[in-house]
C-alpha cells in the first residue's frame, strides 16, 4: 500500500521526492548531517496509560512452603521459580564439601526418580512444552521452568516427584561429576569468572559467598550417597518459595499446588546463609593473569538493603554514577575515552547482605588510565553531587525500566523470586515507582555522598602484572 504522505516529502526535504532520483552517492559526512530545515525539536512526552492490576494469591502451605501465584495472561504459558535457601546446614556433614555436593545435586536433580528415569522425565515435560532446570549458589537452590498453561498439572507432578523422590542414580552422579569437572575447567578459563572469584575473596574472605564455584577436588570426592543425604536434609519446603506467573486462575492453581506438593515435608527448615561481613575498605589488589590483552577492574563497597528506607535514593545515586548507559562512568570511560565496551555499577542484594559493585574491562594498555578515571568519578560524584537533571533522568529510567522488566511473565516471575526472599512483599514492585517519585533530589545527593568515594572501596585489577604493576604502583591505592 502506497499513498501520498500527509506532509509532502518535497516541502522539507533536501532532495526532490522522486522514486527514480539520484546520482550515486557522493555526499560528505557534513552534508549528510545537515538538512535545509535544520535541527528539529524533540517531541514532548504524551499521556502515560497505567498498567493493569495483578490478580494473585499468596499462602504458606502446611509443609512451610510459601506459594505465590500471579495471573498474567499475555501468552498461554506459566513460569515457575522454586527457591530453596541452600546454605550448608549446621551440624550436617557428608564426606564431601557442601559446595561440591550442592553442585552435583543440582546437576542430577532431574536425572531420575523412583517413578521416572531421566529419559521419561524429560519426555513427559517435553510433551507439555515444559523446560525445567536447576542451579545452585552459596545462598540458594533454584528450580526454574516454564510450561504451556494446560500442562501445568504435569509440571507440578514432575516437580513433586523430583523434590520427594529424586534418586540421584549412582551412574548419573558419576557421569555428571566428571562433566562438572570439565565445565569447571572451562569456567575458570573465563576472565570474568576468575575476576569475580578474586574480588569476592578480597571482600568477603572466609564467608561461603566468597567461594561460589567449587574447586575440582571438592567435586571429585562427591558420592551419590553424599548427594542423597544432602537432598534429604536440605531440599525442604519450610522457608522455601514457589512463584508461578502466567495464564492461571490464582486461587485454583494454589489449591493444585497444595495437593501436588502435600507429600513434600521435612522436620527441618531450609538453611539461610549467614550474614556477610562488613566490607572493609582496602587498596585495590593487582591479580596477575600473565599475557592478558584485557584487564578486569572490579571494585566493591558496602551496599544498601532493598528494605532500607534510603534504598530509592541509593538506587538513583547508583544510576547517576554507573547504573545505566547515561551515567557519568559510561559517558566518561566509554563515550569520551574509548577505554571500554561497558562500565557499570550496581547494588547487589542477597539475604546475607548487600554490596555496591563497580566493573569494567579494558585493554592492557589503558588499564591504569581507566582505573584512574573510575576512581576520579567515584570522587567526583561526592564532590560534585548529582544535578537535578541527572537525578530526574535516573528517576524516569528507574520507573520505566521497572515497568518494562515486569511486562513479561518471565520478568515478573524472576523479579518476584529474587525480591520476596529478601523479606519484601510482592506489592513492593508495584509500590516502588511511587517511592522513587517521592525521593527528593537532596536525598539522592546525600546517598551519593554516603555510598561513594574511593576510600570506601576495595577490589581487584586482574591483568598482566608484568606490564601493569609499575604503573599501578605509581598511580597509588593499588597493592601488588
Amino acid at each position: 500500500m502506497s499513498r501520498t504522505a500527509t506532509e509532502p516529502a518535497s516541502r522539507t526535504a533536501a532532495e526532490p521526492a522522486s522514486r527514480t532520483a539520484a546520482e550515486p552517492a557522493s555526499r560528505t559526512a557534513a552534508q549528510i548531517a545537515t538538512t535545509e530545515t535544520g535541527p528539529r525539536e524533540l517531541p514532548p512526552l504524551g499521556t502515560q496509560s497505567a498498567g493493569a492490576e495483578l490478580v494473585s494469591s499468596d499462602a504458606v502451605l502446611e509443609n512451610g512452603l510459601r506459594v505465590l501465584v500471579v495471573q498474567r495472561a499475555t501468552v498461554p504459558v506459566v513460569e515457575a521459580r522454586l527457591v530453596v535457601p541452600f546454605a550448608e546446614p549446621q551440624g550436617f556433614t557428608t564426606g564431601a564439601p557442601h559446595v561440591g555436593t550442592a553442585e552435583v545435586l543440582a546437576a542430577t536433580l532431574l536425572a531420575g526418580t523412583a517413578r521416572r528415569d531421566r529419559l521419561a522425565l524429560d519426555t513427559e515435560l517435553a510433551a507439555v512444552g515444559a523446560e525445567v532446570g536447576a542451579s545452585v549458589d552459596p545462598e540458594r537452590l533454584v528450580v526454574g521452568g516454564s510450561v504451556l498453561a494446560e500442562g501445568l498439572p504435569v509440571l507440578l507432578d514432575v516437580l513433586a516427584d523430583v523434590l520427594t523422590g529424586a534418586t540421584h542414580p549412582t551412574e548419573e552422579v558419576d557421569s555428571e561429576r566428571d562433566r562438572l569437572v570439565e565445565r569447571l575447567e572451562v569456567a575458570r578459563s573465563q576472565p570474568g569468572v576468575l575476576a569475580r572469584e578474586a574480588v569476592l575473596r578480597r571482600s568477603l574472605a572466609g564467608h561461603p559467598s566468597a567461594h561460589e564455584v567449587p574447586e575440582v577436588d571438592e567435586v571429585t570426592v562427591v558420592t551419590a550417597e553424599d548427594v542423597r543425604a544432602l537432598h534429604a536434609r536440605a531440599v525442604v519446603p519450610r522457608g522455601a518459595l514457589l512463584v508461578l506467573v502466567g495464564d492461571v486462575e490464582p486461587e485454583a492453581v494454589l489449591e493444585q499446588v497444595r495437593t501436588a506438593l502435600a507429600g513434600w515435608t521435612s522436620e527441618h527448615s531450609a538453611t539461610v546463609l549467614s550474614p556477610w561481613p562488613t566490607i572493609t575498605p582496602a587498596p585495590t589488589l593487582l591479580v596477575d593473569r600473565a599475557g592478558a590483552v584485557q584487564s578486569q577492574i572490579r571494585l566493591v563497597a558496602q551496599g544498601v538493603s532493598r528494605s532500607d528506607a534510603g534504598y530509592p535514593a541509593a538506587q538513583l545515586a547508583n544510576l547517576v554514577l554507573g547504573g545505566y548507559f547515561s551515567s557519568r562512568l559510561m559517558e566518561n570511560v566509554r563515550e569520551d575515552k574509548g577505554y571500554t565496551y561497558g562500565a557499570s555499577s550496581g547494588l547487589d542484594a542477597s539475604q546475607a547482605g548487600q554490596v555496591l559493585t563497580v566493573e569494567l574491562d579494558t585493554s592492557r594498555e589503558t588499564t591504569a588510565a581507566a582505573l584512574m578515571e573510575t576512581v576520579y568519578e567515584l570522587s567526583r560524584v561526592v564532590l560534585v553531587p548529582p544535578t537535578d537533571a541527572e537525578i530526574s533522568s535516573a528517576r524516569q529510567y528507574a520507573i520505566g525500566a521497572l515497568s518494562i522488566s515486569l511486562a513479561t511473565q518471565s520478568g515478573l516471575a524472576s523479579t518476584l523470586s529474587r525480591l520476596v526472599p529478601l523479606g519484601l512483599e510482592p506489592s513492593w514492585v508495584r509500590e516502588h515507582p511511587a517511592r522513587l517519585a517521592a525521593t527528593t533530589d537532596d536525598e539522592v545527593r546525600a546517598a551519593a555522598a554516603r555510598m561513594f568515594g574511593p576510600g570506601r572501596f576495595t577490589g581487584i585489577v586482574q591483568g598482566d602484572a608484568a606490564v601493569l604493576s609499575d604503573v599501578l604502583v605509581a598511580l597509588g591505592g593499588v597493592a601488588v
Partner: protein
Amino acid sequence: MVHAAPPPALRSLVLDNGLRVLIAPDPSAPVIAVSVHYDVGFRSEPEGRTGFAHLFEHLMFQGSESLAKLEHFRVVQSSGGVFNGSTHPDYTDYFQVLPSAALERAIFLEADRMRAPKITAENLANQVEVVKEEIRLNVHNRPYGGLPWILLPPVLFDTFPNAHNGYGDFSHLEQASVDDCADFFDTWYAPANAVLTVAGDLDPDVAEALVRKHFGDVPVRPEPVRASFAEPQLSSERWEVHVDAHAPLPAVAVGYRLPDPAADLPGYLAAVVLGAVLTDSDSSRLQRTLVQRDGLVTDISAGCGLFGEPLDARDPDPFVVTAIHSPEASARQVLDAVDAEIATLAADGPSAVELAGVVARWRAGTHRSRDRLVSRTLEAGASELLFGNPHLSAELPDLVAAVTPEQVAAAAAALRPDARAVLEVQPGGAA
C-alpha cells in the same frame, strides 16, 4: 484458562520514499517499541573494511542533526526506556522500548538518524576504540572466542562476503574514514532499504500519522542492488585446525549447507527440528549418547544459523554442530559418534514422541519469546526484511508442527560427511 484476546491485526504500508512500515498494536502492557531494520549486514561490507557494518552501527548512536553526541542515549533513558542495536550477516537493527507516553519521541529519534546522522572524525576514533574493546572482550581475551561465528565461515565458504570476520581486523577498523562512513550511509541506509516497526500500546491511526510526520520527508535515495551471496555446495570434507591459547579443552565446530529458506522453507524447518531432536534437551539423541552415556563431550549444540538463531539470515545459511569435548577423545571420534546418530535418524527418522515434544516446546518457546514486546517487534521487522513476511515468527509453531518424520530423516541424510567444513580447536596451553 483466561487467554487474552489476540492483538489486533498488523498494519503495513510503504511511504513515498520507499520506507516499509509495520504497525502492531498490542495493549497488554503500557509500553511501546520502535525498531528499524536496514538491509545491510556484515556480508555487504567492502573488502578491506572488515567489521565496517558493525562499526557503523555504533556510529548511528553518536548523534544526528537534532541530537548532539550522547543525546540519543539520554533521551531514551530519561524517558524511561531502553535501547540497543545489533549487526547480523544480512541486516542491522536498532530499537528502543519505552513507556507508551514516549511513542512520538521514539519515532522521532529513529527518523532523525535515518535522515541526517552526524558522523565526525572524533566520534569515529572513539567508537573504533570501543569496538576494539568489545572484540577483546568477546574474542581475544576469552576461550572459544568467535566460535563458531568467526572461526567456521572461512572453512565453510570461499567468497569474501561469506567467509570474512564480521567483527573485523583491528587494522581495517583503524583505517576506516569519515568518507567511508558517508559512502556506506548513502549506499545502504536509504529509506527504501529499511523496515520500520512500531508496536505496543498504541492507536494505529495515531502511530501511522506520527510515522508519516517524522519519516515522510526523509529524502528518497536509490534502493541498493543486493548481491547474491550464493556459493556452490561443498564437494569434500574441509578440515582446519585453530589453536586457542585460552581454551582448556578441545572443541570442534562443523558446518553444513542448508536449503535456501526463501525457496524451500519446509526443508529448512526440517533441519530446525533435526537440531532440536539432536541436542536440545536431556532426552535428545546426542545429549543421551555423547554426553550422558559415553561422557565424550562436555557440551554440544546443533542447529540452524551461525548464531544459533534459525531464519536470521538469507541463503547461504549453515547448519552448525559445536561441541566442547574431553581431551581423551579426538575430534574425529566425536564426529564419528555424531555421524552415527545422524545416520540412524536418516534411516529411521525421529519417533512420534520425539517430534511431539519438539513441537510442544517450540510452541511454548515461541509464546515466551513473543511475550517480550522487543522480541515481537524485532522478529516482525527481521522476517519482513529477510523473507517479506512479518508474520513468519508467529506462524513458526504451526509450520514446525507440519514437519514430518520423513522430512527430518531427509534433513539428516543431507548432513553428509563428504560435504562439510570442520574446525578443530586445540587448546594452546598459554595464558
